């Protein structure tokens, strides 16, 4: 995903001279192509995320569409109030990119577990929150974010992610993408755990549909309500705390639609997510997912 991100950003920057990229002193062997081709629109700002976010707002006020880039919680929670008040309240064109979502940097410990970002950021007005599931979704969302004003958040995994399913139809940012057709049961995955979900579904839940949900806020309520009509059961799976994640967002939409009479019945929705706890042991991404119960079951 990192490489898809930087490749797409370089392509967009070639034709869009408002694109500006700020790294928080990370990106070795990833971000160099941008830095080399667009030195006037690149900055390694150092390890100072409050300043990074503020500087991005200043640049955005003067017409740039600025991407800030760092690891996990650093470009987000570390400078959360700058994001809320300076970026979102002023509706500044700042896109925050976090590499190492979920347990991507699992062995590095809790400092690098990025597992509350979606919930925290999706409560802030004006913020577009995304967690693509593969490199193609990453590219589609980056292209979109290069062309829209205002705030955005892009949660990436790391390197080596493979393409899941076929893009088939053009991804409409915001809409859940059907990776696999099925009936009765739909699995909705958000972020890099899409790859695991696709692999597990065949053996554990044959016949189930699989959707990727790369944009969590603003959520595509229309399509979520359609899925709620279409399926008896829905399982959501994400590499995020149970509270306030993508699964919660789905439940909110379905509950609200029922309350407003748009739905006359609600499906059974099971949310698979980290059970609202810290993880204090080392482990690979796969290991930490499993120990936190992020597994599909029949």
């Amino acid at each position, binding site marked *: 995903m990192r490489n898809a991100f930087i490749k797409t950003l370089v392509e967009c920057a070639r034709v869009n001279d408002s694109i500006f990229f700020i790294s928080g002193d990370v990106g070795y062997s990833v971000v160099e192509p941008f830095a080399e081709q667009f030195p*006037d*629109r690149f*900055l390694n*700002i*150092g390890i*100072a995320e*409050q*300043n990074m*976010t*503020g*500087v*991005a*707002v*200043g*640049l*955005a*006020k*003067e*017409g*740039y569409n600025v991407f800030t880039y760092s690891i996990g919680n650093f470009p987000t929670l570390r400078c959360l*109030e*700058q994001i809320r*008040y*300076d970026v979102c*309240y*002023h509706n500044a064109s700042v896109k925050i990119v976090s590499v190492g979502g979920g347990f991507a940097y699992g062995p590095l410990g809790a400092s690098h577990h990025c597992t509350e970002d979606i919930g925290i950021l999706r409560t802030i007005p004006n913020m577009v929150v995304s967690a693509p599931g593969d490199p193609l979704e990453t590219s589609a969302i980056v292209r979109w974010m290069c062309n829209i004003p205002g705030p955005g958040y892009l949660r990436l995994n790391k390197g080596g992610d493979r393409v899941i399913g076929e893009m088939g139809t053009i991804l409409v940012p915001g809409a859940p993408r059907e990776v696999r057709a099925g009936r009765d049961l739909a699995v909705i995955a958000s972020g890099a755990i899409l790859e695991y979900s696709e692999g597990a579904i065949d053996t554990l839940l044959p016949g189930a549909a699989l959707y990727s949900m790369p944009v969590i806020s603003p959520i595509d309520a229309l399509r979520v309500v359609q899925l709620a009509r279409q399926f008896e059961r829905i399982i959501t799976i994400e590499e995020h705390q149970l509270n306030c994640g993508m699964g919660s967002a789905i439940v909110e939409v379905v509950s609200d639609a029922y309350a407003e009479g748009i739905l006359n019945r609600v499906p059974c929705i099971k949310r698979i997510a980290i059970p609202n706890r810290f993880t204090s042991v080392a482990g690979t991404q796969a290991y930490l997912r499993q120990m936190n119960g992020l597994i599909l079951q029949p």
Partner: protein
Amino acid sequence: MSMRPIDLSLRIRKKALQLCHEKGASHLGGALSVADVLAVLYGEVANVNPKNPSDASRDRIFFSKGHACSAMYAVLQELGFYSGVEDKFAQNGSIFTSHVSHMVPGIELSTGSLGHALPIAAGTALAAKRKGERWKIYTILSDGELDEGSNWETILFAPHHALDNLVVIVDFNKIQSFGTVAEVLALEPLAKKFEAFRWRAIEIDGHDHAAISAALARAASASDGIPTAIVAHTIKGKGVSFMENKLAWHYKSPNADEYRAALAELEGV
């Protein structure tokens, strides 16, 4: 249109006093301390355009001590950015919130959470450099907000990127929210701190209009890659003897008697 700073500063003080009295608002002490800096900056130095507040060639002025909004709303009204602030200030449904709001014409940035404006000002200064723009970026900070680490990230950043178009003015009135700066978290020697971070530091009496003017002129002419910090030594509550150097006037709103007495002092009656 320029206005004589000596007239403007009196008008700012009287209007800030009126706003805080009539609407029961706080933070008068810090409005009175910054009035002379605002009067010289807006009245004599800065290029701003009340007819077109977003004029691309304007100087960008960031008011980081957003709580001292009564002074800022006053100076912009005096320049003609809008009228009627005395009716609208802090009232239900009004854009004139009790920390400066970017919904108000002439206000670049909403502030109120301290330590936010300087990084944004630096980003604006960087944009000006990258685009070859000649306008200047002024940022007015309180002393207390220099407790915030975010400012020091930017103080490290600005000289590294040769942002000599960035001017910081610290309204160093020596009193913060719950005590004196010296007691709570000492800043001195502040000018030396800026110099150690590779800034040009200019210490002045922040109520001396000629000194403010000279310091701003020196900052505006900089082309050596060095940003300028003007440490303006000021008096909290300046101009009203019973408010000067009193922590209480960070909070209190003047009652009718206090308002009359303060106005009389300001007018020299």
